[in-house]
């Protein structure tokens, strides 16, 4: 995208930008984000307001937390489509438990409980993927169906309109309150901190620990990783467990921000999260991916979902645009790898 404007300064520049994008695929994502923002801002200057920035951040939180888990799984060469079902299960069951049994439970107990519950589901995913020796897509499609329909058959289908006070307070807490010129009040919710914490933790695991090395090695070439002494079984347990853990946390954040626990929520979101991670430069075949790129991918998906209406693009085209972005980014990343 950026190279279009620079090609007239000679093929050398084009080559260098192409090589740079080869090393840093997230730059391509950044370019797409910037182009989208510029496009929207030109068509509708009102877009560049603090409250829109806050809205986009707010809408990115749940997606972003999910995406960090998916990034770890993709980097290890797997794929997980069951995380939204895990999140729905954990958020609904936990809201039910807290409302009916422990109405006074504080948020600093609820969040770790959600994380533990999600991690338990994730570890089962990891066990199944390892034991069944089947592509993780097919295994997690199975567990997705199992978890979601177990929730709807045996736990409940009714909405929780009155969520526990602790969750409600957590969702309402704000970091910054902005008073716009025309009386608009917008807030940056404290839930953004959860995204920041999970992004940092994921970055730390992937880039600064031995497990991170093992994840990338297992995603690159599993056979060689095994000969180097990495235990693929632990890697699979860890990445699926991490995805489950973050899914549990994301579920609670979702309930807190919507002030509503709906067991039908989050279904079908898994594909757009995977799309965000792939747009962020992670290879679906594993062995690559960065936290920054993934966050940019999430912002891009949020931009497409939330702000294209600003410039008169009908919201019915959203899915088609996300699909086209995936094919475009996937093609460019794939051609880059071949070169």
């Amino acid at each position, binding site marked *: 995208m950026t190279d279009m404007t620079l090609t007239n300064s000679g093929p050398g520049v084009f080559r260098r930008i192409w090589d740079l994008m080869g090393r840093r695929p997230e730059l391509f994502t950044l370019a797409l984000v910037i182009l989208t923002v510029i496009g929207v801002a030109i068509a509708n200057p009102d877009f560049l307001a603090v409250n829109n920035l806050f809205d986009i951040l707010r809408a990115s939180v749940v997606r972003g937390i999910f995406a960090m888990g998916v990034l770890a799984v993709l980097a290890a060469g797997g794929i997980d489509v069951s995380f939204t079902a895990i999140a729905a299960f954990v958020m609904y069951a936990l809201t039910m438990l807290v409302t009916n049994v422990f109405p006074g439970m504080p948020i600093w107990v609820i969040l770790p409980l959600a994380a533990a519950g999600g991690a338990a589901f994730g570890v089962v995913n990891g066990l199944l993927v390892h034991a069944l020796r089947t592509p993780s897509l097919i295994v997690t499609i199975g567990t997705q169906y199992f978890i979601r329909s177990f929730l709807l058959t045996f736990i409940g289908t009714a909405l929780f309109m009155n969520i526990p006070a602790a969750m409600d307070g957590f969702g309402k807490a704000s970091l910054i309150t902005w008073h716009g010129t025309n009386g608009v009040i917008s807030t940056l919710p404290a839930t953004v901190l959860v995204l920041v914490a999970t992004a940092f933790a994921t970055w730390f695991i992937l880039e600064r620990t031995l497990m991170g090395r093992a994840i990338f090695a297992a995603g690159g070439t599993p056979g060689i990783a095994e000969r180097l002494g990495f235990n693929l079984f632990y890697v699979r347990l860890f990445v699926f467990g991490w995805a489950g853990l973050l899914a549990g946390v994301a579920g609670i954040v979702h309930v807190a921000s919507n002030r509503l626990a709906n067991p039908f929520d989050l279904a079908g979101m898994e594909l757009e999260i995977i799309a965000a991670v792939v747009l962020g430069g992670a290879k679906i075949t594993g062995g690559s991916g960065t936290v920054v790129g993934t966050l940019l991918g999430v912002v891009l998906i949020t931009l497409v979902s939330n702000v294209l209406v600003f410039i008169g693009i009908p919201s019915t085209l959203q899915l088609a645009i996300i699909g086209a972005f995936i094919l475009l980014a*996937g093609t460019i990343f794939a051609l880059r790898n071949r070169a």
Partner: protein
Amino acid sequence: MPRADRQTVFLALINVIVLVTGALLAGANFIDSYNLQIMAAQVPELGLLALGVTLAMISGNGGIDLSGIALANLSGIVSFLVVRALVVPGDDPLLFSWTFAGVAIAVGLVGGLLNGIVIAFAGLTPLIATLGTQLLFTGVAVWLTNGSALSLGYIPPLDSFGNLPVLGVPLCFTLFVVVAALIAYILRYTPFGVKLMLLGSNAKAAHYGGIPARRMIVITYTICGILASIAGVVIASRNLSVKWDYGSSYVLIAILIAVLGGVKPEGGYGKVLCVLLAATALQILSSLFNFLGISNFFRDLAWGVLLLALLASARVNFSIWLPSRQ
């Protein structure tokens, strides 16, 4: 191939067992000709999509087609919008029906070709490519219809294709069996089928054996697209309406049928007859759940358990329990 034969017998037995269980649990009218016809008319939609997934899986390299149902719905929608402008259904319903089917299959061909080109030439993995095209096809379908269902109205030839039994067998089921037989013939007896099996079981050997991998992949996914669009025609004729989110759980069930039919997700092996038997078994089971008034949520639970159990059973070696074949 004794193993494969045993599998066919096993799946046929499952069909019989589920039918008998159904008759015992739900009464004799579960297996009367009327109910059997209803069940048979429901098989083709999923069966055709499962055949597409089967072909994609056989081609190897993580082959899968997630875009099937999206393309089926899109071809129904595009075809109806185009044909509606050309032919007035009331004037010549037969011409309308044939044009509708023709345009739908053309859309399926283009969609499948897009999948094939993106996978073979742009080098995307089938998973990401068909995920992208799934969103793209669904998105275009939403955009064209503004998210609402389009009613075709009552068109006699189309309606009888979807619902009328001829010689006791619903027409769309006959078509499904013919298409399945054609695919089986291609896989078993043509050079293309033999090469596809080789490509799926060992891509490197296939490359050194001079098999044009890219062309094979493009053709395979194009056939998947055509199968999806035939499913789209069946859906339109059975419901006399088209909608972008029809059959949203079909992605999973099509994969389930393929795996139940013994297709190897890692490529290189798959038998059409087994996939066909798997599709009928699932349909009978699903109808039985309906008869017994079991909730849809529980049915989905059963599909999930069934898929995982099948994958697990493939990892357990039963042959030690069977008499030795020497």
